[in-house]
């Protein structure tokens, strides 16, 4: 079996005859002409073929449970890339597995918030129960265990996912019972998410295909009931308090002597606080700060990424590099570094 990525020439150069990729097991279903047709269907979705690579790798996992050398070769052939190019992409992303996964993938969030609320204890307990560490598969092939970075469910912490479906607000005993059930072949219903299938099934969905036999089953997955307490916490509290957003239509707000637009915000009910005062307080507090002076109008649309490129005031300037010339900044950007 060839290395991932690699070639005979590469092996000759490095002296490495083996690769970290385990040999394909005999019972691994082969990739077929059907797989190729599906790969081409993915390619057709995009203006440029290579955009299909990530979904195609999900497709490979849907058949073989990991990114196999055979799957790398298929992607390379269909996209006119080298296996090395495909392998370079596959090894970058956490969700592409380099060894065969178990039937289910159990991910335990051990990022800060989940960890302090018990996520680390859950991970330790499952690791002990299964006799495996991070990114390893139980001997019976039932479950692959991994610790995950933030799964964007912090209001349900600590969270565990099985095949990426949420099992919320877990504790050690609950998580152990969940994994024990999975090993018995049961599929406990997620707190939020569709009825469990398996890792390969959900990989098929991520490739952009239905993993269900018919439309009814697919619909049932979409409509699966769940427990949505934290998601709805604010909506329910607003109903309880009788609070709502200002209406969009209907009579315009009474003109007032101040002419300020915030009057129609419903009162908070706090003694002595009028909506006018609250709104005015916010404006006063918001005014007169360096970030405002920096002037959004001077900034470029792409200054600032989804992380927030701007450096907060109080951060130390970097005097040895002129503003606008250091990597990652732009002369067009806001002058917040000086703030």
């Amino acid at each position: 079996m060839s290395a991932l990525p690699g070639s005979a020439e590469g092996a000759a150069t490095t002296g490495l005859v083996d690769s970290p990729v385990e040999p394909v097991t005999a019972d691994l279903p082969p990739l077929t002409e059907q797989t190729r047709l599906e790969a081409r269907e993915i390619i057709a979705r995009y203006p440029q073929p290579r955009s299909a690579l990530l979904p195609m790798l999900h497709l490979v996992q849907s058949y073989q449970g990991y990114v196999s050398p055979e799957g790398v070769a298929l992607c390379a052939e269909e996209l006119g890339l080298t296996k090395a190019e495909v392998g370079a992409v596959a090894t970058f992303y956490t969700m592409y597995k380099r060894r065969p996964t178990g039937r289910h993938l159990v991910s335990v969030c051990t990022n800060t918030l989940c960890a302090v609320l018990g996520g680390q204890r859950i991970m330790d307990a499952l690791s002990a129960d299964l006799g495996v560490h991070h990114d390893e598969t139980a001997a019976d092939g039932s479950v692959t265990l991994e610790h995950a970075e933030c799964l964007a469910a912090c209001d349900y912490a600590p969270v565990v996912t099985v095949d990426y479906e949420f099992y919320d607000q877990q504790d050690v005993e609950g998580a152990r019972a969940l994994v024990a059930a999975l090993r018995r072949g049961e599929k406990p219903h997620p707190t939020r998410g569709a009825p469990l299938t398996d890792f390969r099934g959900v990989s098929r969905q991520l490739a952009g295909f239905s993993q269900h036999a018919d439309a009814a089953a697919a619909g049932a997955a979409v409509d699966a009931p769940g427990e949505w307490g934290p998601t709805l916490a604010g909506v329910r509290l607003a109903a309880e308090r009788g609070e709502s957003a200002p209406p969009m239509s209907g009579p315009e707000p009474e003109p007032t002597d101040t002419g300020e637009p915030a009057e129609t915000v419903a009162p908070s009910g706090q003694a002595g606080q009028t909506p006018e005062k609250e709104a005015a307080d916010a404006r006063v507090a918001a005014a007169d700060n360096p970030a405002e002076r920096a002037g959004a109008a001077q900034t470029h649309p792409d200054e600032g990424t989804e992380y927030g490129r701007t450096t907060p005031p109080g951060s130390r300037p970097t005097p040895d590099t002129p503003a606008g010339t250091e990597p990652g900044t732009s002369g067009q950007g806001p002058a917040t570094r000086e703030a």
Partner: protein
Amino acid sequence: MPLTPVLTSRWGADQPWRLSTYESLDGYTALRTALSMTPDELVSLVKDSGLRGRGGAGFPTGMKWSFIPQPKPGETATGPAALPKYLVVNADEGEPGTCKDLPLMMTDPHSLVEGVIISAYAIRCRFAVIYVRGEAVHAHRRLVSAVEEAYAAGYLGRDVLGSGYDLELVVHAGAGAYICGEETALLDSLEGYRGQPRLKPPFPAVAGLYGAPTVINNVETLATVPFVVRGGAEWFKRFGPEKSPGPKIYSISGRVVRPGQYEAPMGTTMRELLAMAGGVRPGHELKFWTPGGSSTPYFTAEHLDVPLDFDSVAAAGSMLGTTALMVFDETDSIVEATLRFTEFYAHESCGKCTPCREGTYWLVQVLQRLVDGRGTAADLDLLTDTCDNILGRSFCALGDGATSCITSSLKYFRDDYVALLPPEEQARLGRSLRLEPVGAAS
């Protein structure tokens, strides 16, 4: 301030993710209005509303759209203006603490789809992509379903609602890389490469996806657009401060009684939000919190009255980020919390820029030995020096974000670091602070 459900207003409905529910609650009425306007009128409307991007940086959305080069009337377009335009939705939510976009896509995916169609029309784009985080399979499932429903109802595809406007929308699953939330890394990933940031300029507005003009907007930003179209700019400005108006989804998590999503006007304070969430768990008190995820410098109890809008939070020394309010109490060790966050950045650094790749690795080593009681007096300065050598020295903001929790924790809780030093090391600092170490698990 009161709660003001707008984006969350449909969340409590029966099956809000279904088109029939969405339409019964005024869904897709904004699209009809938008299609009766010209693209330029829409850009002006969103500019006038003051809507700023909800993905963290807070850039004015209408202005971002206006940077897309468009052909001049009556002239043959050349350069970028002649290329196709793309709209890419950043749905790669993964910043620790951030959990607003996934619930939005799971409960009300059509609001995003409608926002995408309107925004794509405004920038004259005919191919849009929602890049959704791979692990978010349920959000992905409901988005795919919503897009299928929208195609079937004539909101997507050829000749949208008989307007002559064509739009294709693809839901694209990522594969587990936080860095792909950085917009240029997202573009590389969407093009089928390793997700590594690009050096800017050129900016995506000129050379984005496939080298063509591209707008990248966050989920919450685009889901807000239909409400701006329906309510108008003046209505939108009734929420919150003049320079960052609008309703905002605040995500409260951690040591509070009722964690969850609370939608209130921009500029609501943590004191008000904590009260909504039932306060810190009984018998405990707030120690530190993040205003907008792990990349934003910590705040403490002294910041409870800072209005949580872009400018006020920046003035107070942090960033609004994604309004991900993680709450920690006195049982939580700030040094251990900081170590965990730093491990996250070390894992998620794409490796392209040396300061970030190497710096985050070494920060973990230093923090780990401090937590293990093996630190030295010099380590505190070493942390600061290392942060200085990362901040502003990498292509993207991941490296900058990695320094926030360290710099701010040293600023507010230096004694907690000192208390972890062995006695002889404390003596070097000329002080003794043998506090009881607090366990993260207690």
